[in-house]
């Protein structure tokens, strides 16, 4: 998630406003959502532990 945010910062700092900057921001948001999914999965309680 942090990596995705750094990509966003890099895109707005280094790229001129336009389609390439927008694409980088969208991809970075995708990276963050992937990270969020993994964090959610990491917090699922294993069935063994529940029992």
């Amino acid at each position, binding site marked *: *998630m*942090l*990596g*995705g*945010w*750094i990509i*966003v910062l890099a895109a*707005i*700092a*280094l790229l001129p*406003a336009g389609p390439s*900057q*927008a694409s980088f*921001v*969208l991809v*970075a*948001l995708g990276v*963050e*959502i992937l*990270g*969020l999914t993994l*964090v*959610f999965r990491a*917090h*699922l*309680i294993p*069935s063994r532990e*529940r*029992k």
Partner: protein
Amino acid sequence: VTPIRIPALSETTAALCFLMVLLIPCATAGLALINAGLGRFRNAAHSMLSALCVIAVAALVYFAVGAAWQGGAGQPAFALHAAGKDWNWIGAGNYFLRGLELGGWSSLAALFGLMSVGLAAIIPLGSGADRWRLGACCASTVLLAGITYPLFAHWAWGGGWLAQLGFIDSGGAGVIQVAGGLTALSITWILGPRRGKFNPDGVPSALPGHNAVFVLLGCFFAWLGWLGLNGAGAILFTGVEASRTVLIAVNTALAAGSAALSVAAITRTRFGKTDASLCANGWVAGLVAVSAGCAVVRPAAAVIIGLIAGALVVYSVEWLELHLAVDDPGGSVSVHAVAGLWGLLATGFLAALTPGRWLVQLVGIATLLGFILPLTYGLNWLLNRVSPQRVAVEGERQGLDLYELGAGAYPDFMTHNEDFWQR
């Protein structure tokens, strides 16, 4: 650096803004009632006392350090110079509000901050209900009011790098609601679910709130408070004129109403009956979602924002509980984080602003998910390592009222053993 102009307020605008700021505690009271009503009866007094303590701690911490780090437009701040740009990242004001000029923008912004940081701090109480220790709530609030909130508030409202990009968050959908909602998510992860919430196969049990009247009454208070929150926020941080507060009030009412009706229609269609607690959550989600763009969207857009916010709440509550095993008794994650993020995004697409604004709003959303969530999770995880945040098993069985306060909210009620048994 001293970037971005200081907004000039006429005496009339300042007076109107002051009155609106005074309405904000109604929103806090509304959320406190909703959280108490959605929890179990044996934790009701604890829930309300936690709300009071959290508001007090948040105000004191914000007064001590938060206001200085939040800063304001035109006030001193620290900036990093990278890639040919100045990145204004934190305020450099005076601690303990020293040197505050009374009567101007700065004093109104400080008062707004004192009120709104309490609102942000009360949001995680809904997700940690029935199992979060009173001392731990207060300690977690120190982190929120001292670090997370002022940092993002500076970026979005205090002339920080997001504000310089043109990020719009008039009433605090991101600064207050999403920051609070993401803290709520972190708290649910750290505390884990309530005992008896999930059976060994992972199927959730319904643990309904104890007082639907509290929950629905809380919605009325929240509405009143949000009228002030959105109006004052828009005047102070978006620089709108006082005359625009009428549009803000219209948008706020329309979004709340359409969100509640959206939830009512969906639950009626899917379950055959209208779900009162979800409708209440939908109402607040509408208020949360429209906060971002209340000053810059048309009434028709506010209705669309509300309708979608309501639908999002229904599916988000279900998804979080059934598929992601998140036990959030107050629905704080769905109502504040999910609806707040939707409001920020919708502002980019539906506001009557310059084209390309959606990208700036996306950068704000990415910052909340990619930086604020890991930050608040990390801080609360560390706190939990130092001092466990969850109450002992005995406290959960007995109820937090008796266990931590020594007296229940309803002394005439009896606790039944089956209320605690695992199903």
